[in-house]
């Protein structure tokens, strides 16, 4: 029985990264949700509460780590869906570059935003 082969190369690092970031997300997202609901009575809703919460350096690092992991996982997933269209290897490399740029921009924005929010508390 002849097995028909597709053009896919065996590229399993993306799968493993998906799995690892996914597992980390179960923890990080769980933490994020618990904190949003329980760190302050009634949930983290008031502006002052949010600023105070994010001003804690450990919290800041945790939220940035969460953003990095979630963005990475998300863009790896987008990559998988796009690559499923069956593109030429050169096109796939271009997609990789674009997604990496989007990832870097997203994380950079998130870090800038977090720092700006914390700075609000010092006004």
């Amino acid at each position, binding site marked *: 029985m*002849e097995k028909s082969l597709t053009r896919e190369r065996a590229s399993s690092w993306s799968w493993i990264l998906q799995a690892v970031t996914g*597992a980390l997300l179960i923890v990080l*997202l769980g933490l994020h949700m618990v904190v949003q609901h329980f760190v302050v009575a009634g949930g983290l809703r008031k502006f002052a509460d949010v600023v105070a919460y994010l001003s804690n350096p450990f919290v800041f690092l945790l939220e940035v780590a969460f953003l990095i992991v979630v963005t990475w996982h998300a863009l790896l*997933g987008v990559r998988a869906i796009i690559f499923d269209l069956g593109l030429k290897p050169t096109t796939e490399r271009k997609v990789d570059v674009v997604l990496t740029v989007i990832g870097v921009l*997203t994380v950079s924005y998130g870090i800038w935003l977090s720092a700006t*929010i914390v700075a*609000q508390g010092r006004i």
Partner: protein
Amino acid sequence: MSVEVKPKPVERKPAQWINLRGRRIGMWAYVVMRLSAIGLVLYLFLHLVILSQLAVGPAAWDDFVRLAKSPAFLALDLILIVGILAHGLNGLRLGLIGFGIGVPRHKIMVWVFLALTVVLSILSALAIFSEAK
């Protein structure tokens, strides 16, 4: 004697994964995974846009929080939670199977994780809407 086997390229339609006619639960799980993924990626960027209101100032943020307490918004929150649960639990199953854990009982795992998703979704709905009285 050498046998030359030329690999036949599989004919693919780009969106053929989304056609569920005649497919079984495994394919349904695959589609749920992808659709929830797309939804969650869109949510990720939406969330960052919304959080940008915090940089604008307390007034802008309070305006948003007021909106966020409306029943319509809570309904969207519930859709988000269901999407997170479906994607996360399904993903957990895929991760376990991918690392060789539970493979002989995969069929059961699919149904167990589906049941978990449904139960947690109902609990979330109760939690969200009991608070919104």
